[in-house]
């Protein structure tokens, strides 16, 4: 990722978030792996002084875990788009009949792939990110500086949620965790669950859909309560709900 020394923190953050979640840039970038790694490193460096008295020098990265996280996340979110691109290129070069290419694309929805859309919803992208980030937990505070700090074990979980929600915020709309008391309790639960509990893609997706509202005031899955029942009654479910 090409970040200059004079880049502002919001500029670094924007580039780093895009390197993780903006599929139009990621799919066009042959160095996506290195850039995702730099993005996570940058975001951890930006996050640590905001959340604590520690500095980026107090961070410790597990690079093997980082690469596994990046690989699983990319495969899960962008894998179908990469396959579509390969099929399109083959069809364009005459190596594959375009009808056959389309049939293969249709066939993807019949497989047991969790995310089978070439353009997954933003809340689904962040759910996949949080899942693999919580699985591999590649960033931590050094033991020598953080032992005895009760919040240190939750550092990676906080970073995970912070990155995910900042991307949703960058997409427009709001991230709403409720009233002050609910907000604190939910943050607490998020950090605890991202650290200690077994989580899965669908529960995370449901969670992010629940807290994210677009600029029009509707979440990605449901409208406001007063019109919810009528919307349910008139709901036309997509044949391929997995976007």
């Amino acid at each position, binding site marked *: 990722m090409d970040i200059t020394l004079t880049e502002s923190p919001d500029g670094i953050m924007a580039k780093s978030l895009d390197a993780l979640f*903006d*599929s139009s840039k990621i799919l066009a970038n042959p160095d996506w792996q290195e850039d995702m790694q730099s993005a996570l490193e940058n975001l951890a460096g930006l996050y640590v002084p*905001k*959340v604590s008295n520690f500095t980026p020098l107090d961070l410790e990265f597990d690079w093997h875990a980082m690469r596994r996280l990046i690989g699983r996340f990319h495969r899960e979110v962008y894998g179908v788009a990469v396959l*579509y691109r390969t099929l399109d290129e083959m069809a364009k070069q005459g190596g594959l009949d375009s009808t056959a290419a389309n049939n293969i694309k*249709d066939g993807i929805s019949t497989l047991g792939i969790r995310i089978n859309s070439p353009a997954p919803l933003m809340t689904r992208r962040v759910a996949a990110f949080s899942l693999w980030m919580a699985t591999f937990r590649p960033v931590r505070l050094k033991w020598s500086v953080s032992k005895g700090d009760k919040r240190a074990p939750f550092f990676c979980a906080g970073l995970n949620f912070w990155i995910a929600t900042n991307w949703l915020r960058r997409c427009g709309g709001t991230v709403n965790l409720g009233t002050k008391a609910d907000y*604190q309790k939910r943050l*607490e639960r998020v*950090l605890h669950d991202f650290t200690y509990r077994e989580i899965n893609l669908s529960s995370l997706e449901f969670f992010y859909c629940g807290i994210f509202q677009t600029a029009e005031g509707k979440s990605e899955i449901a409208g406001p309560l007063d019109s919810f029942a009528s919307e349910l009654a008139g709901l036309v479910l997509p044949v391929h709900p997995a976007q």
Partner: protein
Amino acid sequence: MPALDEVAAPFSMEEISQRVNHTSYPDGEEERQVDMEFADALAADIGALEFAENCE
């Protein structure tokens, strides 16, 4: 209700890159800025959390 083949029509890469994901935030939209106020406030709230013993 659209016919099955209409809904199941695959997208080309061009369509994917142009597609708005049924909400209003297309990929690659340059003018959107990071909301640093949100980022700072959330980080501060996370940093201020005091974990109850029974949370563990």
